[in-house]
């Protein structure tokens, strides 16, 4: 059994830090003052900057490096009502050995499944289960009444605790978008903090907590920026764009904006928070734009599994095709990569 992954921050230090930053209890009024005091976002300018980053030309050695790095940053995901242990075994096999024809292909960072599929995933991973930094593959579980988040706090906490008890290394929670849009920032903060507490294991370590903002429902960039700060203040280890169930899911401007927040948070506190764009990233070309955006915004040190992930399912195969092309010099085709 591999050593459990410990999260970056304990809840106690997260709360202390939040109190210090906010200068008061994290209630609606204090949070509102703080979050609405952050400089606004100009949508046109943000999108222009994202588009400019998207024009970087990544060629030859840089492209090869980028393709391998993308694979090692993928949370290979299946989140369907029709998921079965067999489907999860198949996903795990692909995660461990993405390209059967090329043993030099790196493994993905994690598999991401619903909570009840965690035992199947762990079982299928066997010895490969572990910290992606040590070459292992982590198990991430979506929780807290994913994807809508419309359930009582007790249900959300039970959902989380069960997945952690089953051995999940990472929890992808959703925020209560309804509460956020109604201005009940204190409630959102408390729920994230409570889920963070539920991530704790008996031995004192914690599963890493990714907080899904569902940016497609927050709609404005100002909301995304505030929700990012709120999630980080409440103790999230990662901020994640989307569930993949709402359109639009991840976009480059939204991800750029979230990277600006984690960069600013790092400048302010010295703590590094991860970012996970999820949903809608299907091509290597797009994924490379994200790598460029990460490196030129937060910094190159963010391009590691503890600080950046792609939530994706079909992206992997496109990267594999590109990778085959860089090795062989010609394009193959969809039948030269496995469907899952």
């Amino acid at each position: 059994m591999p050593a459990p992954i410990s999260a970056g921050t304990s809840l106690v230090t997260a709360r202390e830090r939040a109190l210090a930053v906010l200068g008061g209890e994290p209630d609606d009024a204090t949070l509102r003052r703080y979050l609405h005091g952050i400089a606004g976002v100009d949508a046109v300018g943000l999108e222009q900057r994202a588009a400019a980053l998207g024009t970087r030309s990544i060629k030859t050695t840089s492209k090869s490096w980028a393709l391998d790095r993308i694979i090692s940053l993928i949370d290979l995901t299946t989140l369907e009502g029709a998921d079965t242990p067999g489907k999860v075994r198949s996903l795990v096999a692909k995660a461990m050995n993405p390209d059967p024809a090329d043993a030099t292909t790196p493994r993905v960072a994690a598999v991401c499944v619903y909570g009840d599929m965690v035992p199947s995933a762990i079982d299928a991973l066997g010895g490969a289960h572990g910290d992606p930094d040590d070459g292992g593959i982590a198990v991430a579980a979506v929780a807290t009444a994913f994807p809508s988040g419309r359930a009582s706090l007790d249900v959300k906490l039970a959902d989380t605790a069960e997945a952690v008890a089953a051995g999940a290394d990472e929890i992808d929670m959703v925020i209560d978008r309804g509460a956020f849009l109604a201005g009940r920032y204190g409630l959102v903060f408390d729920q994230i903090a409570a889920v963070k507490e539920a991530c704790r294991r008996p031995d004192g370590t914690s599963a890493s907590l990714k907080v899904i903002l569902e940016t497609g429902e927050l709609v404005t960039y100002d909301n995304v920026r505030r929700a990012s700060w709120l999630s980080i203040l409440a103790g999230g280890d990662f901020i994640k764009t989307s569930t993949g169930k709402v359109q639009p899911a991840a976009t480059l401007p939204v991800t750029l904006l979230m990277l600006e927040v984690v960069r600013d948070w790092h400048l302010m506190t010295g703590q590094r928070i991860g970012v996970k764009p999820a949903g809608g990233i299907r091509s290597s070309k797009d994924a490379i734009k994200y790598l460029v955006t990460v490196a030129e915004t937060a910094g190159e040190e963010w391009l590691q599994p503890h600080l950046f992930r792609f939530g994706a399912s079909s992206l992997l195969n496109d990267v594999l095709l590109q990778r085959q092309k860089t090795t062989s010099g010609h394009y193959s085709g969809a039948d030269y990569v496995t469907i899952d």
Partner: protein
Amino acid sequence: MSFLEYAPAPESRAILSLRDRYGLFIDGEFVDGRGTPFQTISPATEEHIATIANANEADVADAVAAARRAYDRTWSKMSGRDRGKYLFRIARLVQERSRELAVAESLDNGKPIKESRDVDVPLVAAWFFYYAGWADKLDHAGLGADPRALGVAAQVIPWNFPLLMLAWKIAPALAAGNTVVLKPAETTPLTALIFAEILQQADLPPGVVNIITGAGDTGAALVAHEGVDKVAFTGSTAVGRAIAKQVAGTDKKVTLELGGKAANIVFDDAPIDQAIEGIVNGIFFNQGHVCCAGSRLLVQENIHDEVVERLKLRLSTLRLGDPLDKNTDIGAINSREQLERIHELSEIGVAEGADRWSAPCDIPENGFWYAPTIFTNVQTSSRIARDEIFGPVLSVLTFRTPAEAIAKANNTPYGLSAGIWTDKGSRILAVADQLRAGVIWANTFNRFDPSSPFGGYKESGYGREGGRHGLAAYLKPASSVGGRAGAQRRLETGGAAASAVGEAASEKPARRARRTPKPTKKGAAK
């Protein structure tokens, strides 16, 4: 490896088929110049690109004569719709040959290929498309019915946006029905000469556009030529002033687009990340070789330190180097002369007590380069806050209140452009209203569109380019004869009440009146 050291991604030069020598483009043909030919070089490597003909006074006279012939015989007689067809054709050819033009521009000028590819050349095409649409709609240009072309336009353009400035000059001139003699800058003639080939490809009637190359004396001879009806110049204020003197007392119409020292005003409620991008784009776009560059950053004092710190972080990610590399952000300074001027003003800044900070970047051995630089602790009385540096050098000043920001922004002999950064819409409107600058950007900078007029106040020149206003610079209202005839025509077809005022008008069939206007009678009736 470091991912951020992106592998080289050079745009191929194979698409260029340059000649070794270029002549003058007069009357639809390339002809030899009678002056001493000169070299054009790549400012990034100092390598020779081509030998360029030099037009002397006799060549200038030939070009003006060709333009006059084309005006008299062809262009002034052609319908607006047909002129528009030629302009549309040129616009499409620019698009078809866009990669070639972008590579040539970056090679000759030193600007990054991403800018020539994504900004310069697309705008060139946009300018021709826009004015192509105007060619048959001149009645709506704001000068009344049937406005007339001026005749032969002499156009002298600078080296910072060689092809784009050509488009700004030629497109409205042709749409309005003028013919043109254009002189590109001596350090950047290449794209204008490729453009001449495009004109041949477009089958533009000979002489409608003539492109003559040479240095300042060629330009002076062109402007001074008595066969010229219109002078349009973009460049330095000193030369603009000389041109204004030269044409004073003549019938030549003049538009001048000259220097600038734009204030980019950042209020404390600005969208900060986008403001930083805007500041960078404002002054480091095209190495700061932009007349409307935001070279004076006016930042509210309470966010000064944060803005400067973020700016330095951002500047540290800029890539300086090979203009043809697709990842280059900062290209080469266009000439040794310009580089020396930047050095000189920069040293003056240090001597005046300002703090200089330059982004850490490797400077290539050959060519002309200047690292992105910001000066803090700059006072309004500093020369680097007053003189146009025309390079990648930003002077940072502070203000406390909107009134002070406006006062400082306006405290310059120039008045070309300005920027305002704030989340508050009402403040944008209030401040913009009081800024004495021809172009004001709000929460953005250095954005251009053919439908938007561009031009300056005070020493930044006069006249407008772009939009309907840009057309007016190449038109005059219908002549007194034509004008009154036009008025009469409207009167006569305008109904009984109007006709009753006009003496004898009601008795004449409208159609007949249109054929033989009676301007004197009409004038007397008024």
